[in-house]
């Protein structure tokens, strides 16, 4: 039976949700507003909120100074490439762990996650040397590989939890009907886990898009994605906050729009299996 919720309670919850939402969104909103200010207005004290002379000068300046499209394409290739490659590896492995667990499956899962616990800078030099020797420095292929490896534990874990929610009997029935292993995964398991896979895909694209350690350290001029684009506008000796904000807005806009359109899938995927 549904609980009776009083109007007052509803009001409080709504207000609380909006407050938290605005708090979380405020830095992004502020960046967006600052990108339309002049450098002098950007540091004005007290700060101006909406009433200033809006200007798009910063966007022109940023566009004239750096090649946004090149960085954008690199970001797209790296984030989509690494996520798709990761899914290709993770779906079979999550299947194995969810439906054919061995004695040490839990330990393997924990071990995979433990690689995420190490600070990435710990392996920077060895990885840099490997990349140098194989000619992968400053290539999109190299960054796709590294981001796949970095995000693989998360992809496997997410898929594993989704797969665990799917009754094994359905897969058994498919097997009884003579489906091969590949067919079982492609035609039976995957369609049932689509919400889970979709949210894993989206979340990992966002993670890969925002990844700023490896993409900065293993790229130079050719494969540099939008993270490097933002980093080129930050400066400890000079106040370029308005330009930096314009660059940041341009860098996060695509992923923000993608997230906006796919929020239904994201929320559905993230709460998948929460109710039994």
């Amino acid at each position, binding site marked *: 039976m549904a609980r009776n919720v009083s109007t007052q309670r509803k009001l409080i919850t709504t207000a609380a949700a909006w407050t938290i939402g605005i708090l979380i969104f405020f830095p992004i909103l502020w960046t967006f507003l600052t990108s339309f200010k*002049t*450098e*002098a207005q950007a*540091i*004005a*004290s007290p700060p101006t909120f909406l009433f200033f002379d809006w200007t798009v000068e910063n966007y022109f300046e940023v566009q004239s*100074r*750096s090649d946004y499209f090149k960085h954008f394409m690199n970001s797209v290739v790296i984030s989509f490439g690494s996520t798709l490659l990761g899914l290709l590896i993770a779906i079979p492995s999550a299947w194995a762990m969810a439906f054919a667990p061995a004695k040490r499956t839990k330990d393997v899962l924990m071990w995979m996650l433990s690689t995420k616990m190490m600070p990435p800078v710990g392996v*920077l*030099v060895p990885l*840099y*040397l490997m990349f*140098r020797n194989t000619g992968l*420095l*400053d290539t999109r292929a190299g960054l796709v590989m590294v981001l796949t490896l970095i995000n693989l534990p998360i992809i496997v874990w997410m898929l594993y939890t989704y797969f665990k929610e799917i009754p094994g009997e359905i897969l058994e029935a498919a097997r009884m009907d003579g489906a091969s292993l590949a067919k079982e995964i492609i035609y039976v398991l995957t369609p049932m886990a689509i919400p889970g896979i979709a949210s894993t895909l989206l979340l990992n694209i966002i993670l890969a898009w925002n990844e700023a350690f490896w993409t*900065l*350290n293993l790229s*130079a*001029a*050719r494969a*540099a994605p939008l993270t*490097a684009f933002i*980093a*080129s*506008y*930050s*400066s*400890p*000796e*000079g*106040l*370029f906050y308005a330009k930096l904000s314009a660059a940041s807005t341009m860098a996060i806009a695509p992923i923000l729009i993608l997230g906006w359109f796919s929020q239904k899938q994201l929320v559905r995927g993230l709460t998948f299996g929460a109710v039994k």
Partner: protein
Amino acid sequence: MKLRTFLLGTCSAVALAGLAQAETLTIATVNNGDMIRMQKLTDDFTSKNPDIQLEWVTLEENVLRQRVTTDIATKGGQYDIMTIGTYEVPIWAKQGWLLPLDNLGPDYDVNDLLPAIRSGLTVDGKLYAAPFYGESSMVMYRKDLFEKAGLTMPDAPTWDFIADAARKITDKDNEIYGICLRGKAGWGENMAFLTATANSFGARWFDENWKPQFDQPEWKNTLDFYVKLMNDAGPPGASSNGFNENLSLFQTGKCGMWIDATVAASFVTNPKESTVADKVGFALAPDTGLGKRGNWLWAWSLAIPAASQKADAAQKFIAWATGKDYLKLVAEKEGWANVPPGTRKSLYENPEYQKAAPFAAMTLESINSADPKNPAVKPVPYVGVQFVAIPEFQGLGTAVGQQFSAALAGQMSVDQALASAQQLTTREMTRAGYIK
């Protein structure tokens, strides 16, 4: 026959492609006004050198430092030219990571470089990096506030005068603070300022045997003076202020004085960015009469990593970017006030520059008065005015900077901060083998 024709064809195609392909130089640089201006003016270079193309990697200073250090230490060869500072040059040159710049062309006039700057970039008599712009630090002050308080700023003030003036100008009710100084922890943040200040108080990081000196009275005087002054006359939350925060405070009229990089002079006098542009005066960094002033010395410089395969083209570019003609080019296109300062004597002799840059004389005097090979009152075993040119300094400087920042924030006393700095520096220097 067919195969031979094919092979011949392939060979000639490859040879032709090789001939037609221009050499591409990848240049790593920092995001500051002068560097960005250079990127905009490179058409001049590429039109004179059509066989050389340029690719830029612009990064924030700390990201750049990490990025180029990884690359040069592993001989990654990602960059043909790197923008590095006076701190890196002596260390990297000794490691054999940089190529000496011995082919900058007959017109380069290396003797025109300011001696203090040149000496910081020279190792064993060879120049390993060419200065793009040089900077020191000086006092920037509000002439109107000084007048109101009945004070006159001398050209070469003492620390006592500065402290006295700062307290007199401070009007906390109206959000006017006598002095803004760096407080944010970091070897290039508060420690750049405090190490240079300590020099003028007679303090030093290490004695001749690399023994840390934070337990000596000179450091106690320095830190006591700084913390008391900032508590009385500094802005609130000063322990998280770096260059940019102070620049913003000064430009919005909240600071009576600001002691920081000479490069700030062109920002605070720019009416487009600064509300106090016409009210700023300049003076040399203060002293205590011991013979050293509290100013530092830094030069953003261009160097060629030893792993670069394109050293000749790289030297050509460096000769262009740091040569005399480049200064003229900037003057023609953007005016004399925007010429990169602090590298060449001839610039300071130029009457047009003197007219356009009111801070020129002060900048030159500040740079000339710094001596990286002999920075402190007492003898030291290291090179560097506001840093110690050893690889360990980045970590050490930041760790000590955190103690001093905590002292400024009131989280620990001056004595505790110094004791802890002494302890951690001794531990690290022993571990690194400097102290036997």
